[in-house]
Structures are given as structure tokens and as C-alpha cells.
């Protein structure tokens, strides 16, 4: 299963990068979101999935899924969320000031 998940995470990366290479702000941000999903998935995948119960202590269970990557992903998800939120607002403001959502039209060599 891990192999399939790795493939999935890679697909998320590929599609994310493809979107990232586009011109429109929305696609670019979608790209970053996909990439971050991919990254989180990698973290999950790399910790032997499905070995044992959820990492919640129960009396008669002795084998648990590795809880550490889950904690790490949790942190990463929240952080990605913060960054994505910021990026969204930034995209909006960038659009309103630059009057375009096309990154190729925002090459720019003026520095205000």
C-alpha cells in the first residue's frame, strides 16, 4: 500500500507543479495546495501505515500505528493552512493592485 501512496503523493506533486507553472494566480495557488497535500501524504506514507491500532491507548491493544508522523503532519497541516490563507489574501491584493491575475504580466522591473 505504501507504494501506491507514494505514487499518489508523487502525482500530487506533479499536478501541483504543473499548476504552479501556469500563469493564473488561482492555478498557482491550487498548485501549492496540491503540493502541500502531497508533502503531508509523504510524511504519512513514510511511517509504516496501518501497523496496529490508532495511536490511542486502549487497555488490550499492544500494537499501535506510529504516532510521531501523525503529530508532525498535524503541525504541518496547520502551518500550511496559515500560509495558504495568507497567500490567498495576498493573491487577492496583488490582483487588485496590479489589475491582472496573470503572473507573466507581473514580471516587472519597476520597484515602485
Amino acid at each position, binding site marked *: 500500500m505504501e507504494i501506491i501512496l507514494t505514487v499518489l503523493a508523487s502525482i500530487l506533486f506533479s499536478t501541483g507543479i504543473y499548476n*504552479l507553472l501556469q500563469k493564473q*494566480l488561482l492555478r*498557482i495557488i491550487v498548485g*501549492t495546495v496540491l*503540493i*502541500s497535500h*502531497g*508533502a*503531508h501524504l*509523504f*510524511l504519512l*506514507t*513514510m*511511517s509504516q501505515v496501518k501497523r496496529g491500532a490508532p495511536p490511542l491507548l486502549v487497555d488490550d491493544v499492544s500494537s499501535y500505528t506510529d504516532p*510521531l*508522523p501523525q503529530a*508532525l503532519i498535524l*503541525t*504541518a497541516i496547520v*502551518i500550511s493552512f*496559515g*500560509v495558504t490563507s*495568507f*497567500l490567498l489574501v*495576498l*493573491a487577492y*491584493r*496583488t490582483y487588485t*493592485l*496590479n489589475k491582472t491575475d496573470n*503572473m507573466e504580466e*507581473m514580471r*516587472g522591473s*519597476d*520597484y*515602485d
Partner: protein
Amino acid sequence: MINLIYLPIVLPLLASVIAALLTKNTNITRLFSQITSVVFLIFVGGLAFYIFQNGTIVGQAGGWAAPYGISIVGDPLAILLVLTTNIIGTAAIFYAPKVLEEKQERFYFYALYFLLIAGVSGAFMTGDLFNLFVFFEVLLMASYGLIVLGNGKAQLRESFKYVLFNLFSSMLFIVSVAYIYAITGTVNLAHLAERIETVEQQGILTAVGMILFFVFAVKAAVFPLYYWLPNSYVVPNPVVSALFGALLTKVGIYSIIRVYTLIFVHETAITHSIFIWLAMFTMLFGVIGALSTHNVKLIVTYNIIPAVGFMLMGIGLYTPEAIAGSVYYLMHDMVIKGALFFLIGALVIAAGTKDLRQMSGVIQKYPLLGWIFFIASLILAGVPPFSGFIGKILLLEGGLRQEEFLLVIVALLSSLLILLSMMRIFVYGFWGELMDGLSNETKRIRQLTIPGVVLVGLAIFLGIGAELVYPQIESISNMLYERTDYISSVLKE
């Protein structure tokens, strides 16, 4: 004493929250920030002194022993950089009120500043790979907030690119952590070093290490990953540019130093020789960029890149003296880049333009600014007896000992071109007939010059007083090279 080790990270965070709450009266926020940063500086200075005297302090957060909890490692290297950070930060805090609009100050410059300091200090001190990611995000988030401060058109445009690049490298960071955890089952740096040593960094680890290198290299602005840097450092407010120029790329370089002297040291023939090539190109292309523009701020910004090349050079050479050179250069470059950005900010305000072709004769009205800029340029180019010189000797010596003649020649050539790029500003901007439209705010310009003066003074001290500093750097580089001190300090039972 051990618990004090958390304070350089936690206190700025606290200060950030307080500064965010104090938005009603900007004067109070300003005063609070100034006092706080001075207090931090004194505290960190004391802590650094203690660590230099008594050796590494390791805090195991929450009392959980490494590698299970997060270790905060106050080794001499980390505390040295934290100290430098606080010095530059304090200078920036006193510089800020003169260049920021009151609204920018009110809308969280100070809070974001303290957050940045917390992130930077945390990145320097953490002993945990994933925690390093978290601190990277903290400092990046603060930098995102700072870079958009002011909301200019070009500013937002470049900020967007800046955020994307960093976001991408952050994601790559997570993936590297995932890979590393898959192979080694741990994220503690010291534990990683220990475990990887036992398997002698087999092939896949080297590849993963390279990805991690690129993660840091994007932030450090190593060739060919620095494209985002020049424009995004030019657009923000001068004080923000100064903080970025002095601190941000350095965190990347620090991370490369840390990881590539502690963990991935078993395939140096492959990894470190790649670094040498990259270092060479970084120096060359950086300085070529600096020569390509008439925008004075951009010139200084581009000059960040060859400096990164120098530091990478030391890592690539991987000998104790070359590492010492990198560390010395790192510390020196933080100080001098801060100073240069402060001074360039003052110059731009004084001249009312960033275009070198439109300014001349500034020194006639602002001699202090001119001369300090002149000295700073010499320091940057590594002219003795200033701080850049010491790092440069060590690096060149390392390069020559390893018979990397091409590298040495490129390094020297880029030093020369750095000097050329800076002297063009001096010769065509400061010298010449007194220009029209030079600012009359002599008092403000003088105030803007002072932080630069202080930092340049420090850089001069780091050169002339090198004997007071160098033995520390030497012992740091030996510790880095030997690795055992770090590992045993963190993993002690």
C-alpha cells in the same frame, strides 16, 4: 541555567504578542520594542558569554530526553548567531521609526519583527529537524508579513513570488523529513548523526541529503535557486530589506552548515564537491547581477549572493579552517549586510531616488553617510583589516590547501567585482557635483546613518579585534568538524 536556553526563542514570541496588542499608541509600542530588544540583546550577550565559557547547553524541552522530545541546543555556533541576530535586530528597531510610516508601525511591524527574531533564533538553536521546519515557517511567516508591509504594487507582486518559492521549499522540507524518518526512524539531529554514521550514509541517504540541501539552498539563495531573492529584497521598506539581507539567507546557510557538518558527512566526495561548483557559480552570477543594475538597493541586494557563495565554499571544502572561514564569514556578513542595507536605505531617502544615474555628490551634504558607506564597501570586499578579511583568508587558505585553484580565482575575482559594484555607488552616487533634489532632512539622515555606523564599527572590531573572536570561531569549527561535542551534549543519558 539550562532553562534560560529557551528564552532567546520564547521571549521574542511573547514580545511579539505584546507588541501586537499594543496598537493603540505607536509611541508606546516603539518604546516597548526598543527597550525589549535592548534587554534581549543584553540577556543573549550574557548567555553567549556563559556558553563560550562553559560549553554547550542543551535544553530538553518539557524534560523529555532526546531524541524523543525536542532539544534546544545552545552550542557556541548557535548562540553566536543568535547574538548577532539580536544585535542587528536591535539596530533595526532603532532604525525603523525613521523609515516606516506610522501606520506600518502600528500594523504590526514590531510584532512581526519579534516573531522573525523568534523564528530565526529558534532555527539557530533547535536540535530537531522537524522543529527546524517549524521555526523556518515562523520566520518565513513573519517575513511574509514584513515584506508586504506597505502594500505597494511591485511589492505585492514580488512578495507573491517570494512566498511561492519559500512555500515550495518548505514543502520539499517536509518531504525530506519524511524520507529521513523512513530510513532512520528519527528526527533529532544528533540522533540522526549517530544513526547515519552506523550505516555510513548509503546511497539513498545521500540523495535525500541533497534534497534537504536544496531546501536550505533556496532559502540561502544558492545558485541556481536564488532567482526569487533580488527583486523581493528590493521592494520592501529599507528596514525590512536590512532584516532580510542580514538574517534570512543566513538561516539557510546555517542550516546547510549544521546538516552538512553534522549529519551528511560520509559522502563528501560527491556532496561537497557539488557544493564547490555551486559556490563558484553563486559567487559569479551574484556579482554579475550586482554589476548589471543601476538600482543602488538592487546592487546591495545582489551582493548577498556572492557572500552566500563564499560561505558555501567553506562547507564544500570541508576542512576545519574552511569551516571556520564560513562561520566567520557568516557572522561578518550578517553584520555588514545589515549595515549596508541601513546605509543604502538612508542613501535612497537622501537622494530621493534608487537610480545611480540620477544621483551624485551626496557625500558633500552627508559626509558621514558617505564615509561609512565607503568603509562598509571595503569591509564587504574583504579588505583588511576588517572583518571580511579574516573569513576570506581562511576560505582562500582552505581552497588553496585543497588545490581548488579555480575556486580561489573565482572567489578573488568576485571579491574584486563586489568592490567594483560598491565603488560604482560611491564614485557615481556619493562623489561628483552636488545633485539637485537632495533631501534637506539632515537630522533624519543622520539618525538613519547611526545604526549603520554601529554595525560598521562592529565589523571593524571583528576584523581588528579578531583575536578576541577568532579562537571562539576556531573552537566552533573544530566542534563542527569533530561532531562529538554536539552529539554527546544532546544525547547524554
